[in-house]
Every structure is written in structure tokens, then in C-alpha cells.
């Protein structure tokens, strides 16, 4: 069918790749909706009971059930769910009493801000570390980097968070404490993007920016450390694989200096693999690190989702799951596009 469609006029043009991108994203998203819908039906939480309370009479219960459309065939219910979601209606959260979409618009940027800073640290530090470790395999630099990588796996996030707070906040006052901004400035910055660092810059409020920065720097660095450990380890093993390739010998035979061998001949081919690794760890960070968000009282999506789960707040759980799923789809598609840019073999 795809081939048949491809041949029809408008899609045979240059816009075709874009068209197929939209189609695949839409279908993946529909699949995601189906999964969240099914989860919403199979969990042993009665949505009617959640509305009417457990003291309601049989008649009230039945009336509510009908009113909520739970009597309709599954497919109708699913269609209604899809339509609601497409219109941005994710239902109301029992926990906060606000529409879930509104809640998510508030908590997701908090996580986005921290995760983005974290992944930037992870890439900027982790990639060169991995490359250097591979180039100097077996030396003390390699050992130090490997121990750091191991630490990134072994140290629990909450411990690092607490110790970080004790040292840098409580003892030396170098960074801000828990929360996104100092308490007296909370809510003072007009919300534009939801990202405090950017909003405070837009507002031209440097004091708020400094405060927000001092609050985010520690949790973001800790997140960055964890992704750095992973990224450095993967970069190192990708590089070692590359350095064993024949074309590395070709480059040597041509008289290439070591720097060129490492950064051009070995590093260029691994960029595609690195994008996968970086994309996945960014997506992982965007899920919200519950530990870090809890330790730092960060009002992010991890915190929100956990609270919702504990309160059996199904609309909130499904809404947050949907956002996280959409993030994964977005990052995957983004990586696909980057592959094509960076690897000539991936351009059809």
C-alpha cells in the first residue's frame, strides 16, 4: 500500500519524506494511546467508584457509569478517548483537582529544564572522556574514567543527592537548596515557557535567574553525572571497536597524525551510534528521575507520576504516561533524522 500511495501525485514530490514522517509518528502515537487506554481499563481501579465514592447507592453508581459512557462498546470508548486526547483533554486529576493537561504543562517543563541541562553535561563531558579513554586504553586516564563510569552505575541517586545537598548547600552554601527557586521568589517570574531559566531571562530578572540557576545546578549535575557515566562508557567501547577497523590502518598508512585518526577516522563513524545512546539517556532523564526530584523537592513529572500512582489517580497516571511516551517517539524520530544527516549510508 505504501508503494501505491507513494506513486500518487503530491506524495511523489519532495515533501514525501515529511509526509511519511507525519504518518509514522501519527500511527505510533495511536498505538501509544491504545496502550494507555488498555492500561486504564485493566487496572483494578474502578473509575466510577473514584467519582461517586464508596458510599453511593446502586442507582447513583449505575447512573454515573452510564453518564461516563462506560456502558458503550470498547471501540466507541477508545474513539472518545482519542478525540479527547487530541483536543488536549486528559481528564481531571483527583489528586490536584485540576485538569491533568494543566498539571502536566506545569510539571513537565520543570523536568525538561533539569534533564536538558543534565544531558548537556553528560554529552559535553562524557563523550570526550570516552574518546580519551579509548585512545589511551589501559593507561591511568582510562582507569580513572572507567572507575567514574562504574561509580555512575553503583552509587544510588538519592545518596548522591543528599550528600551533595549536605556538602554544597548546607555546609558551603555554594548552591541553592531544594525547590526550583528561592522561596520568596516563587511564582514571581511570569510563566512563558515554564522553563525558569528562560522565563527569568525573558523577564530580564537576573536575580531570579541566578536563584533558579543556583537551585538547578546541583540536581542537573548529578543527573549529568549519571548520564555521563553511561555515555562515556558507551563512547569508549564504540571507539575501541572503531580503532580496530581496517580504515584506521589505512589512515595510518597515509601518515595521519594521531589526532586525525581519533577524531576524524574513528569518531566520525560512531556519531550515529552515539545519537542513539544520547537520545535514549535523554529520554530516560525526561521520564523524570523520581529519586532526584524527591530529594530536591523538584516539582517535575517523575514526582507527579509517583504521587498520582500512589493515590490511584488514573487520569494523571495515564496523562503523564502519554507525555513520556510522546517524548520517546519524538526523540526516536529526531534521532532518525540525525542519522540521515550524519551517515551517508542511511540516506536512501
Amino acid at each position, binding site marked *: 500500500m505504501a508503494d501505491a500511495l507513494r506513486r500518487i501525485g503530491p506524495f511523489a514530490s519532495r515533501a514525501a519524506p515529511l509526509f511519511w514522517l507525519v504518518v509514522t509518528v501519527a500511527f505510533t502515537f495511536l498505538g501509544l494511546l491504545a496502550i494507555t487506554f488498555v492500561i486504564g481499563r485493566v487496572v483494578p481501579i474502578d473509575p466510577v467508584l473514584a467519582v461517586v465514592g464508596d458510599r453511593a447507592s446502586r442507582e447513583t453508581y449505575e447512573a454515573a457509569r452510564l453518564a461516563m459512557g462506560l456502558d458503550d462498546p470498547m471501540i466507541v470508548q477508545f474513539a472518545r478517548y482519542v478525540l479527547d486526547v487530541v483536543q488536549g483533554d486528559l481528564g481531571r486529576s483527583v489528586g490536584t483537582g485540576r485538569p491533568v493537561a494543566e498539571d502536566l504543562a506545569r510539571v513537565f517543563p520543570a523536568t525538561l529544564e533539569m534533564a536538558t541541562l543534565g544531558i548537556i553535561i553528560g554529552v559535553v563531558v562524557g563523550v570526550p572522556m570516552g574518546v580519551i579513554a579509548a585512545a589511551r586504553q589501559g593507561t591511568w586516564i582510562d582507569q580513572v574514567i572507567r572507575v567514574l563510569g562504574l561509580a555512575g552505575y553503583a552509587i544510588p541517586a538519592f545518596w548522591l543527592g543528599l550528600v551533595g545537598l549536605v556538602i554544597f548547600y548546607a555546609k558551603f552554601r555554594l548552591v541553592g537548596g531544594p525547590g526550583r527557586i528561592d522561596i520568596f521568589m516563587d511564582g514571581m517570574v511570569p510563566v512563558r515557557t515554564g522553563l525558569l531559566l528562560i522565563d527569568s531571562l525573558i523577564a530580564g530578572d537576573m536575580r531570579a535567574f541566578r536563584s533558579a540557576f543556583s537551585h538547578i545546578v546541583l540536581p542537573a549535575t548529578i543527573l549529568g553525572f549519571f548520564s555521563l557515566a553511561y555515555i562515556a562508557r558507551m563512547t569508549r567501547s564504540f571507539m575501541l571497536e572503531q580503532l580496530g577497523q581496517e*580504515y584506521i590502518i*589505512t*589512515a595510518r598508512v*597515509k*601518515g*595521519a597524525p594521531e589526532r*586525525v585518526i581519533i577524531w576524524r577516522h574513528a569518531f566520525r563513524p560512531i556519531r550515529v551510534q552515539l545519537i542513539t545512546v544520547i537520545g535514549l539517556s535523554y529520554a530516560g532523564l525526561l521520564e523524570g528521575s523520581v529519586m532526584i526530584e524527591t530529594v530536591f523537592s523538584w516539582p517535575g513529572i517523575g514526582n507527579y507520576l509517583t504521587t498520582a500512582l500512589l493515590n490511584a489517580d488514573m487520569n494523571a497516571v495515564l496523562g503523564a504516561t502519554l507525555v513520556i511516551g510522546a517524548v520517546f517517539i519524538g526523540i526516536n524520530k529526531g534521532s532518525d533524522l540525525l542519522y540521515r544527516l550524519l*551517515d*551517508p*549510508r542511511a540516506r536512501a
Partner: protein
Amino acid sequence: MSLLRVENLRVRFPTDQGEVEVVKGLSIDLGRERLGIVGESGSGKSMTGRALMGLIGPPGRVTADRLEFDGIDLRGLSESGFRKLRGARMSMVMQDPKFSLNPVIRIGEQIGEALQFHQRLPARARRRAVMEVLEAVRINDPERVYRLYPHEVSGGMGQRVMIAMMVVLQPDLMIADEPTSALDVSVRATVLEILDDLVRRRGMGLILISHDLDMVARWCDRILVMYAGKVVEECAAGDLHAATHPYTRGLLASVPQLNETRTRLPVLDRDAIGAGT
């Protein structure tokens, strides 16, 4: 004056079972001629090539009583010393262009690199030199090939690109390590012809490493037969049929003939030729 003088070259690698010697006292005296090194897999022929280029790093060890390239002592030559020689004065064509060309760098850029490492040339002059060398390996539309990636060309074309890359600086010595064994039979002759033509015209010394007796006999002046890390036979290409060593005799006997009547080819008697010594 000879281009390359090697006496008692040894290459060793440490293993869990002790040190393994893969090249055991090889000697070559090479002028600007074409020398063939033949032998089976593991006979040490590729290791010899790599040792000459200084490509055997730790934990491998290379020793020799004499290892001179155009009067330069290669023993203990620093990495930066080798770097000046490689590409510019000695170069090596490898087996399979599928693996020996970098998949994410355009062909023109990969050839241009060799120039870049050794000469300060303005970009335009470099580009012109690349076009010329592409033409020299009989690529008809260098402009197009310049912009291609290695996966977009055939094996034969890839190997021509490889040769272009290795002759662009007009080296004195070329080592060709199984340059045609990954290619289709139909393009082998062309590739060898191009290589041979360049070697003769530019007066280069050539070491052709192969397991193909016929091919080496046809394209070389002199032949070394290696077995288990040692040279077991050395003769002029024309005298190969008169070889005396049992290993060489065995190899010759197992070459299939066009008007073959044998149903089985003879198998080498490795005990008789002293396997592993």
C-alpha cells in the same frame, strides 16, 4: 642502491602460552623492482608488510639485524618518523576496499587527506592533484567519484580509489597486501594492470603479497615463498616451475590445470616439510 634492505626480520607476539614468533628471520633486498611474497594464511606475509610500515605496535615486537629503507634505519624509528615516511615514501594497498575505506568520508576527501598530511597545498591545487590521480587509476569521471562515499562504488572501483590514495604522493615503495583477493575475478586483471603500470611508470618498488602463485608469477620479477614465518624459496618469477623446496613443489602440484584429469588434487604433506618449525 637498494631501496629496502632487511636482514633477519623477526616479529613476535606475547600470548598466554608464551611468545609466538610469526616472522622468523626474514631477509629481503629490494631494488626498484617487483617482489612477490606468496604463502598460505598465517605464513607471516602480511605481518612482514606491516612490520616494514611500522604498523606493529605493542604488545608486538619487531627486531632485525638490519632494517633500512632508502638508507633510513627503521629500527627504533619514532612514530613521528614513520609518519613522515608513510603515505609519502612508502604506502600500502590493503585487501578489501569495503573495510579499508572510511565509510563516512567522501572519496575525494580521503585521497586529499594523504596530501594534506604531508604537503601544504592550497585547497584548489589539492583538488586538482586528486582529480589527476583518479584519472591515473583510469576513473573516467573523477568529478563524480570525488563526491561519492565508499559504499556507493563497486569493489573494483573502490580498490582503484585505494590505489589512487596510495600513489598520490608518488612513494618509492608500495606494499600491496592481497590487493585483489576481495575482488571479482573479472576486475582483478584490470586492477593489477593499473597497479603495475603505476609502479613501472613511477619507478616504484613493489611488494605484492598474495596466496595466488600464478598471479605473483605473472606480475612480479622475483618471488619469495613463505611458510610458517620463514622464507622457504626465493627465485626469479620465471624459474618458479624449477622450485626445489617441497612446500613450493606441493603448492605447484595443487594448482588445478585447465585440461585436468586428476579427480583429487594432492594434499600437502606437512610432516615432510616440517610444519611449524
